[in-house]
């Protein structure tokens, strides 16, 4: 199965991480998480089961909210959103996320857009998947410069949600909130443990020889390359077209 693209591995891994959710919310510019959610829905429906509800923020077709931009957060506060994705300019080993900037706040030397809804959603969405393709020491740091949203909360602070996994372009980590910290679960094809250690600014647990991230089977790939990329093209036309170009290049 050498013809599976790295981003297809990510999409299929996300579909696996989302298994069992009823409602997943995806950010406006997050084609890979959206594709993962759509793939899970397609896989469920192919088996005659009910797939997850998918809310894509900023989309008209995949957004059924009628109460303005507050409704997503109200919905999450009511426990109606099971999974969400967070990126981050910086993510540290305690699962803290920084979406604000580097250097001395408020006069950040590098300013990113801002925290958006993270300071709330991270607390109340049970299955938050941290997703950042770029896996470098500047992203995965020992300690973030600014906490937009903390990985864990002290005893007594209301916390029905939080991180469960961190998916990068090199591997998949599970988050253990009791320790707290990350454990390397698997390494994507073409990467290895030494490379991941080099690229990660925080310490993490791992097996001596971590396994490889599971690859999709043929029927999953067929669903992805057919129905899912068709659906994805409605909201993320450029991404879907690019994936199909890359697949064309592999086939050629």
């Amino acid at each position, binding site marked *: 199965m050498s013809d599976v693209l790295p981003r297809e591995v990510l999409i299929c891994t996300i579909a696996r991480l989302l298994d069992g959710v009823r409602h997943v919310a995806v950010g*406006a*510019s997050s084609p890979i998480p959206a594709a993962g959610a759509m793939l899970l829905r397609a896989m469920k429906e192919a088996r005659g089961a009910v797939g997850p509800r998918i809310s894509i923020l*900023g989309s*008209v077709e995949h957004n059924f*909210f*009628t*109460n*303005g*931009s*507050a*409704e997503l*957060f*109200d919905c999450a*506060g009511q426990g109606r959103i099971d999974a969400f994705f967070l990126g981050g300019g910086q993510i540290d080993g305690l699962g803290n996320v920084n*979406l*604000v900037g580097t250097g001395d*706040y*408020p*006069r*950040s*030397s590098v*300013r*990113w*857009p*801002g*925290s*958006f*809804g*993270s*300071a*709330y*959603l*991270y*607390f*109340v969405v049970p299955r938050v998947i941290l997703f950042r393709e770029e896996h470098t020491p500047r992203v995965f740091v020992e300690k973030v410069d*600014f*906490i*937009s*949203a*903390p990985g864990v*909360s*002290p005893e*007594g*602070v*209301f916390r029905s949600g939080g991180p469960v996994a961190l998916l990068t372009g090199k591997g998949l980590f599970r988050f253990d909130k009791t320790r707290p910290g990350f454990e390397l679960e698997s390494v994507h094809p073409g990467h290895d443990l030494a490379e991941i250690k080099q690229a990660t600014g925080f310490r993490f647990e791992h097996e001596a020889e971590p396994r490889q991230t599971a690859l999709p089977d043929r029927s999953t790939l067929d669903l992805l390359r057919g129905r899912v990329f068709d659906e994805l093209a409605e909201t993320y036309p450029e991404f879907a077209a690019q994936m199909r170009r890359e697949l064309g290049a592999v086939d050629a």
Partner: protein
Amino acid sequence: MVLSEPRVMAKHIEPGMRVALPVDYAGVSMAMTRPMIEHGAGDLDLVCVPTGGLQLDQLVGAGLVRTVETSAASLGEAGGAPRFNAAVKEGAVRLKDATCPAIHAGLMAAQKGSPFMPLRGLIGTDLLRHRDDWRVVDNPLADGGDPIVLIPAIKPDVTIFHVPMADRFGNVWIGRRRELAAMAYASQTVLVTVERIVEENLLADEMSAAGVLPALYVTAVARAPKGAWPYGLWGEYPADSAEIARYAKAARTADGFSAYMAQAQMEPA
């Protein structure tokens, strides 16, 4: 309600006022940006509901802004908000970094005439650490040991947005963009630009009435075709991403920003 025009409406804005602006996809009155800059009332405290973009960046670039309360600032796919980011780095604007539901909660408190709204989350964030106006209290309805954050009411002096239509009675069609209603309920003055003004009363039909902000909350309405441009307007036209990218590139420097803003061609092509 007064049927007005953008240049006249801008005169409602006085130095030091708190001004609420909507998120880029909800209906930004870009048609008001230029008149606001020409009018020149500065020291504004902007509230972005819940995030800001082009309009925020241009008002900051024009030097009219004292503080910015927002959950994020960016030009979307065109990248960071260049004049905002420069002002942050120079310390030229004071930041009140927020999170989206906190801004909605503050408006909700104002809507109800309450002093604050409690909100989950936030505890342990550096957002909370830098907000001396947000308070943590123990939930008085629990047996103790349940800290929760209080967000004070956000009461803008002025709210400004753009929507497809108003009727000649001043009722404004906001569809499912209910945050525009929340902003209006919370504000003293509400200035609305619209694509068109219709003859029929929008409240007369049950199907349209539920998506209407009644004239009770609307101070003035002005017709401004393509008034969200280069942003898009829901149900009407898409964003002009090439123009937003052109701005993003020009506004990387203060001179480039001035040159862009000085162009006579500010109306949509």
